[in-house]
């Protein structure tokens, strides 16, 4: 309530001041945010809960010193909660001033039209577009003129592998094709140890595999509002992904119930040779696990299943363009303050300390440059540069859901040891229809 009164009084004051010329245009230090509060929604970090709390305080203190305004952080538990929070806020025009969104939600946020589209002037207030790594801007908006997302962190996906197991099997490095990876996984599967750890029951992991294998084969899944899930490359992707467990048996049968965390745990227990589709944040967990010091990261294969080299129209995507974007709500009453806070969060110093605390890569060009020399990060930075953005369409999250649904409905049949192609095709056809319906409605 105090906040609202403050907002009301300050906006009255501002209105009274009119164009007296003291509205802060030059420097963020010229902002007077005394008595104002910015609300920021971020994902709760349970790997580092204490550090996150400390970080909240630190940012609040810094921002208060800069502008006089307070920063209040709210956290959401899961991407689903995040979506709900965005929807309710958009609908009611009330809620956090700044949201930290997973990159793949940016198209959805853009589609609502409820978030600030950044004009040149706004970018200037953020220190210019050049301050960011160009690649990280790939999913900020449909094109360079229409961007809502300000890159905050980068979390490209890579593959962890157990160096001991690979050495014992005489494999010197992970394969660069999915077929090669499968051959290696077969060699590494024996007596309770499996070649791959894959989270089939995760709500998000599966589509990332299907998407990666499809784009590598030249099928972007969505192009010009047309869904192409029914393309043979997507069927092949599903067959490969599901086949690992069903027919190739290189995955623990228990993986049909795994979420991402359980796959990491299994790899951490030394029971799987490869752990594809993880980000650098898994490092903390793995360094405390039984495989500490016995694992390394590599980029995931970029040669699509069934091929020995990348086809001409294929994209050698190592990962989706992953991480977090910051978006500023249009309904915010403190736009300039919000931009100043975003500037603080994306400043080289903050980005560097954020990486050091949470293991998430900077999007700030200066901060990123500093890290390039770190050899442990080489594959991750490599993956970041070869990552590719998912289609920028307001219906993407529906397409995503349709992709996952095929896997969910296929799971019961996996234990039969074979993949029924007709059934799979029927499920994919349902997915294609759902995706196309959603795209037809997109604007």
């Amino acid at each position, binding site marked *: *309530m105090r*906040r*609202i009164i403050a907002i*009301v009084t300050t906006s009255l004051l501002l209105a009274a001041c009119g164009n007296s010329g003291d509205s802060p245009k030059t420097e963020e230090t010229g902002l007077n945010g005394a008595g104002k509060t910015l*609300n920021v929604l971020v*994902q*709760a*970090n*349970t*790997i580092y*809960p*204490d550090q996150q709390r400390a970080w909240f305080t630190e940012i609040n203190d810094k921002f208060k010193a800069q502008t006089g305004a307070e920063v*209040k*952080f*709210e*956290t*959401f*538990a*899961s991407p*689903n*909660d995040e979506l*709900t*929070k965005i*929807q*309710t806020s958009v*609908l*009611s*025009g*009330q*809620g956090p001033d700044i949201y930290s969104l997973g990159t793949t939600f940016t198209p959805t946020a853009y589609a609502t039209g409820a978030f600030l589209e950044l004009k040149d002037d706004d970018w200037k207030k953020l220190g210019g577009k050049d301050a960011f790594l160009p690649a990280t801007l790939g999913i900020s908006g449909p094109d360079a003129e229409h961007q809502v997302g300000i890159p905050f962190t980068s979390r490209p996906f890579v593959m962890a592998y157990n160096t001991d197991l690979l050495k014992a099997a005489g494999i010197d490095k992970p394969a660069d094709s999915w077929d090669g990876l499968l051959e290696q996984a077969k060699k590494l599967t024996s007596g309770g140890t499996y070649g791959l750890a894959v989270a089939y029951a*995760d*709500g998000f992991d599966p589509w990332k595999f299907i998407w990666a294998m499809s784009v590598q084969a030249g099928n972007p899944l969505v192009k010009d509002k047309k869904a192409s899930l029914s393309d043979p490359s997507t069927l092949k992707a599903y067959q490969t992904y599901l086949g690992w467990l069903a027919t190739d048996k290189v995955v623990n049968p228990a993986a049909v119930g795994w*979420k*991402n*965390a*359980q796959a*990491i*745990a*299994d790899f*951490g*227990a030394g029971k799987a040779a490869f752990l594809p589709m993880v*980000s650098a*944040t*898994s490092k*903390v*967990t793995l360094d405390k*696990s039984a495989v500490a010091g016995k694992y390394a990261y590599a980029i995931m294969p970029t040669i699509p299943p069934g091929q020995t080299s990348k086809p001409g129209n294929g994209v050698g995507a190592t990962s989706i363009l992953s991480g977090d974007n910051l978006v500023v709500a249009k309904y915010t009453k403190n736009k300039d303050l919000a931009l100043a806070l975003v500037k603080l969060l994306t400043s080289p110093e903050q980005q560097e300390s954020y990486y050091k605390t949470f293991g998430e890569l900077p999007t700030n060009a200066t901060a990123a440059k500093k890290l390039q020399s770190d050899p442990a990060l080489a594959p991750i930075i490599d993956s970041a540069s070869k990552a590719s953005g998912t289609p920028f369409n307001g219906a993407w999250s529906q397409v995503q859901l349709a992709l996952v649904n095929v896997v969910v409905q296929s799971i019961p049949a996996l234990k039969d040891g074979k993949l029924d192609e007709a059934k799979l095709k029927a499920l994919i056809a349902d997915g294609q229809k759902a995706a196309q319906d959603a795209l037809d409605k997109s604007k």
Partner: protein
Amino acid sequence: MRTDVQRLLPRWVQAAVIAVLLVFVMTPVLYMLFASVNDDLEVARGAFWPTSLHLDNYAKIWSTVELGAGLANSVVVAGSVALVSALVAVATAYVLVRFQFLGRGLILRGLLALQSIPGTLMLLPVFVLFANLSAVLGMQVIGTRWALFVTYLTFALPFSTWVMVTYLRGLPAELDEAARLDGASSWRILRSIIIPLSWPGLVVASIFAFLLGWNDVLFASVMTNPDSRTVAVALQVFGATQEGGAIPIYGQLMASALICALPVVVLYLVFQRFLVGGLTAGGVK
């Protein structure tokens, strides 16, 4: 042999029923207890019995999950919902049971029908309502305990009222009728006759209202901020965030779940006396 008058089942049937139900109920609960002190990797492997004793889980959770603040919020919100909804319900039920008026049957049926409305349908509209309310009142509504209180109170009402309607029907009308003939006001009758006689019903109604507020995550997850977050949401945040990036910490999850359930179980233990004590209020002594 007075106690045996109440015996409804032969001893062996009674013992068998209790034993079977206790096993049914307690197996998962014991599993929670064991998992809360077990090694996380053992839990992941499917162990039921604990192989180690990680009692420190119970110390760690207070910083991993914001349990303390969550518990306080839940107690305040659910507690006041329990209290107020029982009082509103008994007043409503009193009128519905003792008086004849147009639309009475409709209200009675409506109260039941209201419970068939799914929460997922109401989430957005209720949010819109509070957002508009906040614009009208010029103060923050969403994110405060008040918003939660009003929401839960209302959602608890149909059921609480029904419990009270059912209960009051079992109360002989002679008592309040006599008072009415003596010229007592309805308010007075409600306060000094109906409410004191309806303890068992009131307690049941309160418990349900309390649970509704205690357990909800659907509304609480969008209508709270970190300051007003209830313990169920704190738990959910904790559980859900584990799904990405870290090895699942089953131990702490189970420990915090048990802590979350404890107050309610204890509360019930305490209030049981009232239930039992007020046992014969329904009949004329």
